[in-house]
């Protein structure tokens, strides 16, 4: 098995707010991430696909194809957008690194034409990231 990783970057705004909680609770739990007009990050996304290299092409997956998928599914949807308001898949979810990584997984998994999606790693900053994997049993 070979693991192929491609990286993209996008810039987006978000804020953390749970309408089921009081203003004080939101402030206590989310701190400055709860500021009402939002804030932004330069996100870095690393997508890893696992597979056996094709005997003819030597490729797990054509990188050009993967680049196109990432641009269509992620960059076009999220780059220079406000995640809470402009990304339909995040409606009703707090756009934490964990939740955005999982949404990205769901967007990409059915689009990967060869090999299988192994890991989505989303960096919100160089010091904070979330890794999403598929698990057989669904156990955590």
């Amino acid at each position, binding site marked *: 098995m070979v693991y192929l990783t491609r990286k993209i970057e996008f810039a987006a705004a978000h804020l*953390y707010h749970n309408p089921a909680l009081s203003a004080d609770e939101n402030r206590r739990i989310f701190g400055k991430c709860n500021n009402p007009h939002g804030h932004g990050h330069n996100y870095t996304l690393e997508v890893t696909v696992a597979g056996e290299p094709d005997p003819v092409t030597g490729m797990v997956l054509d990188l050009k194809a993967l680049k196109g998928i990432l641009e269509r599914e992620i960059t076009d949807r999220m780059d220079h957008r406000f995640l809470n308001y402009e990304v339909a898949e995040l409606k009703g979810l707090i756009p934490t690194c964990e939740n955005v990584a999982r949404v990205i*997984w769901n967007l990409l998994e059915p689009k990967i034409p060869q090999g299988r999606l192994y890991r989505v790693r989303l960096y919100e900053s160089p010091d904070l990231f979330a890794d999403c994997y*598929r698990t057989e049993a669904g156990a955590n």
Partner: protein
Amino acid sequence: MDAGYYLELGRRYRFAASHRLYSPRLSEEENRRIYGKCANPYGHGHNYTVEVRFTGTVDPETGMIVNLADLDAFVNERVVEPFDHRSLQDDVAVFRSVVPTTENLCREIFERLKSFPKARLKAVRVEETSNNSFEYAGDSEGKER
């Protein structure tokens, strides 16, 4: 909500510390041969980066595996504060009897963080320089997903 997914949260911290690689169980010549300039008597230093990965259930109320304020407070108290701007073999008790290689440092940091009550520690990766890094996932290898 998490059925079918496995999520980890990763966070990086930094500290600067000095160390000397020298084992009293070895001769001067052996220390010199094995550790080279890392055995120089007054020690030397690095800017260390510690990457930790935790897993747990994503709380539907917050969208988080763990609140970063809680995690940062724990790691700062257990690791960053006691190690930053210190001499590892002089100022950190365990390294008076264990050579402060980054392998051993990685294991010590894992031991210090594994009792975090709000999420499960999966792995600790320490970068000694931008060219060297070491990862420890506990004796169970931390691979059960």
